[in-house]
C-alpha cells in the first residue's frame, strides 16, 4: 500500500501533480522578473510614478506566478480559488482609507477663494451675500448652499 502513489490510492484526482519543468520554468521566470525589477528601478522614465507602477506591476505578476503555479491554484477547486480571491479583494477595498487623504485637500476653507491656484474656485460652488449685514440674532441668515 505504502508504495502506491497516493493519487492513485485515493483514486479521485483530488490533487494534480505539477510537472517538474513547470516548477523550474516558473523559478526561472521569477528570477528574470526580479532582474527586470532591479534594472527598471534604476532607469529614469521621466516620472517616478512610472517606476512605481512598473515595480508594482512586476511584483503583482510575480505574486500571481507564485500563487498560480507554486501554490497550485491552477489545479485547485473553485472553492479554494474563491478564498484566494476574497483576501486580495478585501485588501484592495482597504485602500478606500486613502480616499480620505486624497480628498482632504479639497475641503472648503473660508477666505481662500481668491488665492487658490485654480483661480478662486473652491471645492464647492458657493455664493456669498453682498456685504449687507443681516439682523443681529436672526437665525439662519447664511445663504443656503
Amino acid at each position: 500500500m505504502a508504495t502506491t502513489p497516493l493519487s492513485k490510492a485515493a483514486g479521485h484526482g483530488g490533487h494534480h501533480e505539477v510537472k517538474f519543468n513547470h516548477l523550474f520554468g516558473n523559478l526561472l521566470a521569477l528570477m528574470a522578473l526580479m532582474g527586470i525589477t532591479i534594472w527598471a528601478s534604476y532607469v529614469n522614465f521621466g516620472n517616478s510614478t512610472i517606476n512605481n507602477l512598473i515595480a508594482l506591476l512586476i511584483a503583482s505578476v510575480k505574486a500571481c506566478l507564485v500563487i498560480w503555479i507554486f501554490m497550485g491554484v491552477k489545479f485547485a477547486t473553485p472553492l479554494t480559488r474563491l478564498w484566494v480571491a476574497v483576501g486580495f479583494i478585501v485588501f484592495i477595498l482597504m485602500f478606500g482609507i486613502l480616499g480620505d487623504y486624497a480628498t482632504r485637500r479639497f475641503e472648503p476653507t473660508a477666505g481662500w477663494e481668491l488665492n487658490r491656484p485654480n483661480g478662486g474656485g473652491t471645492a464647492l460652488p458657493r455664493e456669498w451675500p453682498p456685504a449687507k449685514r443681516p439682523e443681529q440674532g436672526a437665525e439662519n441668515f447664511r445663504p443656503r448652499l
Partner: protein
Amino acid sequence: MSSIPIEKGLENSSPHQREQANYLTVDWSLKSWLTTGDHKRIGIMYLISISFFFLLGGISAGLIRYELTSPAGRVLESETYNKIFSAHGILMIFTFLVVAIPAVFGNFLLPLMIGARDLAFPRLNLMSWYLYMIGGTLILGGMINGGVDSGWTFYVPYSSMYANSNIALVIVGIFFGGFSSITTGINFIVTTHKMRAPGMTWFRLPLFVWAMYATSVVIILGTPVVAITLLLIVFERVFQLPIFSPELGGDPVLFQHLFWFYSHPAVYIMILPAFGIQSELIANFARKRIFGYHFVAFSTLAIAGLGFLVWGHHMFISSQSMYQGIVFSLISFLVAVPSAVKIFNWTATLYKGNIRLTSPMIYALSFIGLFTVGGLTGLFLGSLGTNVHLTNTYFIVAHFHYVMVGGSLTAFLGALHYWWPKMTGRLYSESLAKWNAVLVFVGFNLTFFPQFVMGWMGMPRRYHYYYFAPEYQPYHLMSTAGASVLALGLIIPGFYLLKSLANGPKASANPWGAHGLEWETASPPVTTNFEQTPIVMDEVYDFDPVLEHEQAQARKALEPTGYEGYEPGALAEPKKDESDLGGKS
C-alpha cells in the same frame, strides 16, 4: 424531518448505558475536558469562561452606574473610574460579545445543525479556546497590574504616548483573543463548506448556520487588521517604533481608520449571530417557516459585505475629509436596509403562525423591539448632521447598548434557554424563566432609555464628574435604578439554570417539538453527534401551522397538563415512543 433513527442500536440497552453514551458523561476527568476535541465540550468550556468574564464586565458596569448617581462621584477616583469603564468596554466586547454566540452556540450547534460529526479541525478548535483563555488572562492581568485607562477604542496618541497604564499587556491579550476568533472563523467556514450532511444544500441550512458563516467571513477578514493595528501601539510603547506619532509626521486619524475598519465589522460579528438565533427562535416558536428565507439569508451576507464599507461613519467629526464622510454616510443608510428587511421578515413570520410564548420566544420578541429601536437610533448617528451633536454623548452609549445588549445579549439569553435542554439534558423552570425574560426587558429599557434623552441633552460619554451640569442627574438615577433591575434579571437565570442541573426533569430529544437536525439526536447528544450520518430529505423549518393547530387541540383534550412551556408529550425521557409527536408529521 426524516432521518435514520438515532437511538438505533441502543434500544435494548439499559437506561444506565444510554446515559453513559452522551458527551457530558463519557468521561469525567478534568484532563478529558482540557484535551477534548469535541466541539460540544469546547462550547461548554467557552460558556463557563465567557460567563466569568461577563460577570467581571457586569460588575464594572455596576460600579460605573453606582458612581454616576452623584454628580461628584461616589467612591472612585477619576483615574480608577477611567480604568473601570475601560475594563467594562474591553471585557464586554473582546471577551464577551465578539466571542459569546459564535464560540458557545456556534461551536455547539454548527456541526449538529448540518449533520456533521464535528467541526473540520477539532484540535484547532481546542487551541482557539486556549488562545481565548490566554488572551483573557493577559487582559485581566493587565487590568489588575496597572489597569488600562484608554477606553476600548485605544485612540492614539493617548494610548501610545500618554497613557500611564498597562495598555501593552491588555493589547497583547486582545491580540491572542483575536487569533482565537480567527481560528474559530476558519473552522466554521471550512465546516460549513465541506462538512454538510448529504442532502443539506445551502438553502436547507438553518439561518443560524448562514449567520455563523457570514460572521466567520467578517472575523477572518477584519480581525487581522485590528490585531496588527493594536500591535503597532504595543510596538510604539515597548520598542518605540513610531507609526502614528504626529511629531514624526504620522497621522493619528489613520489609526482610527484602521481601527474602525475592523471595529465596525466587529459590530456585525456581535449582531449577525444574534440574527441567526433570532431566526431559529421565531421560526420554531411561531411554528412556521421563516418568512422570506432567501431574503433573510442574503441580507445576512449583504450586511457582512457592506459592513466593510462603512467604517468611516465613526469618524465624521474626527477631521476626516468631508467628502469621505458623505460617502460613508450614504453607505451607512444602505446597510440599514438589510437589517430592516430582517425585522420585517421576522414580524411577518408571526403572521398566521402558531405562537407559543415560551421564555426563549419572549427573548426573541423583545429582541425585535429593542433591535428596532437600536437600529433606528443608529440612523441618527449615520446621518451626518445629527451625528455631529450626538456622537461621543450618551446617545451613542444608549444606541449601541440597545444593539449590543438589547440585541446580542437578549439573543444570547434566548439561545441559552432554548438550547439548554439540548446542551445539558435538563429542563429548567419555565414559568420562572418567562417572568425573568420580562424582567430583563423592563430593566433594560429603564437603564438605557434615559440615556437617549441624556445624550440628546448633551451629556458626553466617559464622564466621571458632572457637578457642573447637574441637570443630567435625574437621568443617571433612572438609569442606575434600571441597571439594578437588569442585573437582577441577569443573575436569576444563573440560579434556576444551575438548579436545573441538579434536579431539573430530564429532557427528551426534542422538548420544544422544534425542527432541525440538532433536535433529532439525544439530549445531551452523543459524542459523535449522530450514530449515523443523517440524510436530509426535507426543507428547513418544515412546519405546518394548520395541522399543528389541529394536533394541539386534540392533544389538549388528551393530556391537559403538560410541563409548562415545553411541548406536551415531548417532555420527559420515559415517553420515548411518543416523543415524535412533537411537531412533525
